[in-house]
């Protein structure tokens, strides 16, 4: 038996495979395909204080080994989450993490306080990296000063474990990771989508209603992996890596580079069972290589030999 568990402070995860916000609904959407309780955790859909309709259609474009989305945080708001979703999903035997979003710091703080009252939510993921909203979102995640302010404010408002999700659309990702650590984040997750664009050549117009959108999928894996490696080498808190993970081998790249855990995003659209298959593949790899604890390979490529 291999030990797959990891922890963020005193919060235990049974294994390092989580699902990424905005790509796994509230978990229920996948009930027919897998037992979500087998996952290390679920990060639910990006949530805001008020309901949001998101951006206009078309919101999606396929790109080489990836996709662009411009969903724009469509969600029914925190009231609906509390009353209709939470009551149904709180029985899942896994860590349910809420991804929080806002246009102003107050929004984030109010939202964090609301979530703070929900017993079965052990952690929040602070999303300062959504590229698909006009206000807030990535603006917080690409400016060191506002990043620090919003992290500080949310930290003060929440006793849950705080995971800060970074934007890759910056010159130096390590600066932002350090700020998060300094302001008391318990963990860092990265990367959110890269700002991209696609043009429909036949129609001679942008493919997305918003012109630009967020790029995800295997195309971004090399960039995500580089950033995770940089951040893992710069901070002491656990790092959760994501970006284009489709297979166990992809996940292992992140773990070998220094991630304590991974999130599976776009892969769940291609194969709704991707997360579980990846989990099984990681376990198999550890067995094959004769490791008994996943922690032995976290950051393995950085170990002096």
């Amino acid at each position, binding site marked *: 038996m291999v030990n797959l568990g990891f922890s963020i402070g005193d919060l235990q995860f049974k294994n390092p495979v989580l699902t990424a916000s*905005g*790509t*796994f*609904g509230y978990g229920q*959407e*996948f009930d*027919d*395909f897998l037992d979500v309780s087998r996952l290390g955790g679920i990060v639910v859909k990006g949530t805001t204080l008020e309901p949001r*309709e*998101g951006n*206009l*259609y*078309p*919101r*999606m*474009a*396929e*790109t*080489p*080994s*990836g*996709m662009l*989305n411009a*969903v724009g945080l*469509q969600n029914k708001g925190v009231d609906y989450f509390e009353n209709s979703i939470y009551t149904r999903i709180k029985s899942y035997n896994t860590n349910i993490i809420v991804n929080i979003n806002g246009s102003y710091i107050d929004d984030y703080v109010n939202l964090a306080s609301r979530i703070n009252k929900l017993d079965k939510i052990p952690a929040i993921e602070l999303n300062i990296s959504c590229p698909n909203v006009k206000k807030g979102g990535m603006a917080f995640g690409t400016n060191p000063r506002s990043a620090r302010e919003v992290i500080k404010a949310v930290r003060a408002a929440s006793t849950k474990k705080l995971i800060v999700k970074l934007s890759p659309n910056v010159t130096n990702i390590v600066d932002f990771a350090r700020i998060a650590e300094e302001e008391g984040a318990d963990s860092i997750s990265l990367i959110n989508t890269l700002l991209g664009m696609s043009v429909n050549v036949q129609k001679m117009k942008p493919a997305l209603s918003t012109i630009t959108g967020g790029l995800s*999928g*295997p195309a971004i894996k090399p960039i995500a992996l580089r950033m995770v490696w940089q951040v893992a080498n710069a901070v002491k808190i656990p790092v959760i890596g994501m970006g284009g993970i489709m297979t166990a081998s992809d996940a292992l790249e992140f773990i070998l580079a220094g991630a304590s855990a991974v999130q599976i995003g*776009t892969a*769940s*659209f*291609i*194969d*709704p*069972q991707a997360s579980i298959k990846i989990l099984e593949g990681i376990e198999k790899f550890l067995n094959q290589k004769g490791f008994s604890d996943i922690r032995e390979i976290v950051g393995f490529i950085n170990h002096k030999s």
Partner: protein
Amino acid sequence: MSKRIEDLKVIGNKRLNDDFFIIELTGEQKLPDFKPGQFAQVRVDGSPDTFLRRPISIHEVDLGRNTFKLLIQIAGKGTETLSGLKNGDMLNLVYPLGNSFSLPAENEKVLIVGGGCGVAPLLFLGKYLKSNGHTPDILLGFRNMERIIEYEQYLKIGKVFLTTEDGSMGEKGYVTDHSVLTNSTYERVYCCGPDSMMRAVAVWCKKNNINCEVSLENLMACGIGACLCCIVDTVKGNLCTCIDGPVFNTTELKW
């Protein structure tokens, strides 16, 4: 009815014309109880340009033989690759997905309207209605004679009216130009086809106070309600074409 992901075996690939082909599939397990209007998310393997699955309607079902068919139009790289499938190849599907057309009331006068690849979900619907005691009329529109597909199949279901854009068969023009619509007593219309056609049919139905259901073909990533990419603007706000649809009553849509 629960969704599944499964490798199915190709047992037929019939080319109808330059654009269309029909794939027949079978599985080791018993197939689910499909409802007309549902679709599958088809994985296109071996194509570097198709990262996402392709949504394709259930076209015909033969539960006795445990098989079903997909009618596919070559629209780009993914469908092009699918057109090369050979007997014995495996195809990975996530299915059955989506809602379905609602059944008409007894004796309701029903018209099915299809155009181009919109005929895909309608044959299954027609057969389903027939086996439930209805005899729908069917109005099909094509660009020209060469592009007409599945005509004989529809003849077995009900009366068939045709339009072609060049008049090479049936009446000349678009489906909404067909004379059968002028003095109609239809009470319910089912429609699938190009966006512009569905909108025109919806307008006509509204004017004539006819209940109308359309099957939308929005761009999809997941097909299971997880990505929120396939939304359509409705009177209830944004709904997902993949789980709240693909079939919508046009009174719900902001057309």
